[in-house]
């Protein structure tokens, strides 16, 4: 074979065809947390969707971690579930190692570490963590997928509008009714 033919620059050059695998999916969902002096309210909708498709109307994404801590996720459902399983396992190990249940503020730090551990292949989850601390006060934290977190008195993720809100101290009953209203109006707008 004429070696020159191998370097025929007149031939049309087609770009190499590459298939890029996307390991993520957005399954939607919205969650909210409201903390009070002696309570913490965490709520999540139970819809799992994929684009315009609704997969199921009952797939819970708020998970009980301990008697005093609840994790609410949204984003990629498989990552949310894997994250919950990882946290549960760590909590189990902690219980056997220290003979006590991890406190909610400690879980908050552990969640941040767990998310950041996967900094270069992140869990695509928007987390809220709420619960009661060791003094019986309500505590709540919000996270980005990489693990940045902060304590916040109230927070919503997903399709809830949080613009122009003001902080008011309220009773648990008021908080529950506000949460229900928020989910009602969110579900009217989010298809």
């Amino acid at each position, binding site marked *: 074979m004429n070696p020159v033919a191998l370097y025929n620059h007149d031939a049309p050059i087609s770009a190499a065809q590459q*298939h890029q*695998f996307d*390991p*993520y*999916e957005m*399954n939607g969902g919205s969650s909210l947390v409201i903390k009070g002096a002696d309570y913490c309210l965490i709520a999540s909708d139970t819809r*799992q969707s*994929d684009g315009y*498709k609704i*997969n*199921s*109307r*009952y*797939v819970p994404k708020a998970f009980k971690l301990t008697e005093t801590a609840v994790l609410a996720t949204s984003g*990629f*459902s*498989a990552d949310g*579930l*894997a994250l919950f399983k990882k946290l549960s396992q760590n909590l189990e190990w902690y219980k056997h190692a220290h003979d006590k249940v991890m406190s909610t503020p400690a879980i908050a730090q552990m969640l941040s570490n767990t998310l950041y551990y996967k900094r*270069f*292949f992140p869990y695509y989850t928007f987390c809220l963590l709420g619960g009661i601390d060791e003094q019986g006060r309500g505590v709540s934290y919000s996270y980005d997928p990489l693990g940045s977190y902060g304590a916040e008195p109230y927070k919503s993720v997903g399709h809830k509008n949080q613009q122009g809100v003001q902080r008011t101290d309220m009773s648990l009953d008021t908080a529950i009714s506000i949460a229900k209203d928020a989910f009602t109006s969110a579900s009217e707008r989010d298809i």
Partner: protein
Amino acid sequence: MDHFSQGNINYPPQPRSDAFSDPTTQTLNPIVVGSSVLAIKYKDGVMLAADTLASFGSLARFRDCERLYRVGDFTVLGASGDISDFQYTTHLLDTLVVEEYYTNDGHVLKPPNIYEYLSRLTYGKRNKFDPLLNSYVIGGFDGGEGFLGYVGHLGTSYQSSTIATGIGAHIAQPILRKVVEGRENTITEEEAIQVLEDCEKILYCRDGRSLNYYQRAKITAQGVEISGPHKVEGDWQYGVKFGKYGNFK
């Protein structure tokens, strides 16, 4: 002088798997693929349906491909997507069932176990960037009631009383939901067969990668029964014919 290369231009071997190199992958392009799987819960358990076509691009390559597979005594696995990945999965499940059998401790794999196994398998493979390119439907009977779950190629999973994969998720799912939701415990076997057959017929007319032969699986307290292939008659009259479900007028 290099005495060891033996003509291998890649000698000495270069590190392949540092953090910045591409991961090893096998199939990122599905080749021979199956189309929709449909499934519903009904009075006696769960019923699944899938046509028997395995397409090679737009070529209807294998017209006798069985995409419903029995796993253990009370589970049927249905798959759409890459057939070779599906066959690999059935191989893994067979191995698992045999292991459970010779352990001989009275424990058998139940539908929720298989559902969990498949969701961990697919999620694990997606984490390695080597996904199983299938959508799985797990139908079974456990604890006196039907079990119906879905597992996607990224590890996404959910349970629902109606499930449809592929283009069936767009075309058949609304019909199945209209008929089944809220009536899971009243739908008779005849009714279940009818709605699945209607959906297979509509899919045969609308889905260019479908076939007019399908298999049906029934999982009840009595166990698994896979039947077929059943034939559906294409109806190429004007679309008002499908107005039965109020979708097309």
